[in-house]
């Protein structure tokens, strides 16, 4: 099997588009004359879509479906889908079409001996200006924090070589950052300019909770990339800064006391100094505990990835 196309079916309002989209994918890969399979991962979808899906499944025998009873995360969907498929190249799509057919083919063709991951960068976006702005801001932040070069992490469409998905561990909603995590493991990624496609004309606005969630995800990613193997560095940096602020304030107050003869017994500033020192020591000691955990329990999480052994 050369291609496995995994369709992550999530958003219920998009049902009409979804079935059309899967049909479209089928046609697209059928024309390529290479063995392929389509796996639809239904993540907590409604009755209507389920019925539509059954019709679709009956039409084509290379289309399979997985259904999760309860809503779960993208990472779990992907892991299950990976287990059920065996294509060498894995094409992951969302529940509706995000890029044009030509662009998708371009992405797939870009996977060769050198490139392990192809990720799109949507050009000429047709969704609302607010969404575009948010997306730009978000991606700039991600680039900054992870020192990567991706311009469009939020597009669900991505093409991977199978070993990438097997070697890079993701959880929760980290799927969008998979290229960044894979980079860390030494896989080669290429960002390819693609044409944005929007069928419905109606675009979804994301609420505040969505962005808070994403922000937490970015922080998790940041921590994962830079500090999971050395939590002490991360926390002790915070701890040292806090303690220094505390010490600075304390010395200021003490100088006043001993050289200028002020009474400091009831100065809130002294309290603040103690507070900062306590905070600093707490941060540093949490980092130390993290380091102990990493040292005594992290043995199965190898730091290196092996490409070849002869």
């Amino acid at each position, binding site marked *: 099997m050369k291609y496995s196309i995994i369709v992550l079916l999530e958003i219920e309002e998009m049902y009409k588009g979804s079935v059309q989209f899967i049909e479209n994918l089928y046609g697209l890969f059928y024309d390529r004359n290479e063995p392929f399979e389509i796996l639809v991962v239904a993540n907590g979808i409604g009755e209507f879509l389920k019925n539509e899906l059954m019709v679709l499944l009956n039409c084509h025998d290379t289309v399979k479906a997985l259904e999760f009873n309860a809503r779960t995360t993208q990472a779990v969907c992907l892991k299950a889908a990976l287990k059920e498929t065996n294509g060498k190249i894995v094409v992951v799509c969302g529940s509706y079409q995000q890029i044009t057919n030509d662009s998708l083919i371009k992405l797939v063709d870009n996977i060769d001996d050198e490139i392990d991951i192809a990720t799109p960068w949507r050009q000429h976006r047709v969704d609302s200006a607010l969404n575009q702005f948010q997306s730009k801001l978000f991606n700039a932040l991600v680039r900054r924090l992870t020192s990567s070069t991706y311009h469009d992490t939020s597009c669900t469409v991505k093409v991977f070589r199978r070993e990438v998905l097997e070697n890079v561990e993701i959880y929760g909603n980290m799927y969008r950052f998979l290229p960044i995590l894979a980079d860390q493991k030494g896989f080669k990624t290429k960002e390819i300019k693609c044409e944005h496609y929007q069928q419905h004309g109606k675009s979804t606005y994301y609420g505040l909770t969505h962005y808070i969630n994403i922000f937490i995800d970015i922080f998790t990613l940041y921590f994962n990339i830079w500090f999971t193997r*050395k939590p002490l560095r991360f926390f002790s940096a915070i701890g040292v800064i806090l303690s220094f602020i505390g010490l600075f304030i304390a010395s200021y107050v003490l100088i006043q006391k001993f050289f200028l003869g002020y009474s400091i017994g009831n100065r809130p500033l002294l309290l603040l100094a103690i507070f900062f020192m306590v905070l600093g020591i707490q941060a540093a000691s949490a980092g130390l505990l993290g380091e*102990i955990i990493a040292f005594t329990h992290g043995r199965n999480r190898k730091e290196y990835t092996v490409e070849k052994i002869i």
Partner: protein
Amino acid sequence: MNATNTIKSKDMPVYLSIVVPLHNEEESVEKLLAGILEVTEQFDFAYEIIFVDDGSQDNTWTIIEQLKETTPRLKAIKFRRNYGQTSAMVAGFDHAQGRIIVTMDGDLQNDPSDIPLLLEKMEQGYDIVSGWRKNRKDHFSRVLPSRIANAIISLTTGVRLHDYGCSLKAYRSQCIKPLNAYGEMHRFFPALASMTGARITEVPVNHSARKYGVSKYGFERILKVFSDIFAMNLIIRFSSTPLKGFTFSSIPFFLMTVFFGILAVLSWNFQWTSGKTLFFFIAMALSGMAVVHLITLGVLGELVVGTSDLSHTKLARYNKIMMKKRDDQGFENNHKDAEGQSPDLNMLYDKVKTN
């Protein structure tokens, strides 16, 4: 009785694994292998050579592939990207089958003919033998920070060696394999292993100046090494007895709690100080919080260390068995988890078990 020195057979378990991390060493890799083979061909026990290509950008890997064709003994591991010397060594340890593992630099600065010296020391019963570049052929600007770092490591970890940075070291595999090394820890392998009761010594080895490639050191690196020393000391100390460590570090805060507590009582009941009672109470509460926090973390740490398989009590027990065996059998020693042990040793283990 010493099977390793009398029988020469390809079927016998590997006794020695030589692990060499390589990063952009296309000029030296061929000479390196030739140099190692020249020494190892005189050995009458089974050995293997493991090259770890640490994400080289030059032709190192293609040369290794060519060398593999002529030297079947050679094992090679290619990383997807550059992960650093420690990871390369750990990968080598993970794939090594030998009972003794020797690590060395890939830049020809270590002399393979020193390997027998290290092995000799191992036979005397040491678990780790470190090379000591007594006459270093490097520039003064590199030797001096290294001297200082060595002195600090030596003082703080309690393992007395002259040269921690020397890559040429020999380890008994069961002493190094359980270590969960990451980051830049390779310098601290002896110190880490000593936590589990390994016997450590050093021998002076040859050192030649770098012929090819560029040295991978700089000022940044020196800073990194020093912060590593600090971090490793904390880790070594705290991961053996976390509760003790955390409790000790809470002492200053405990003293502060007592101090402010006394002041609070004095100002409240006797009006002996000019400060406000509320202030002293809050200060006392804050520092008391830190004490509780630290001791709680210590208890958690104890839990974490206790549930890990790097538990120090377990390794100490292994050591006892090893010592007993040494009495029976001279230098031979190995515990049941080690790979590649000879049949004699298995019998001995049965004996130990039935006793």
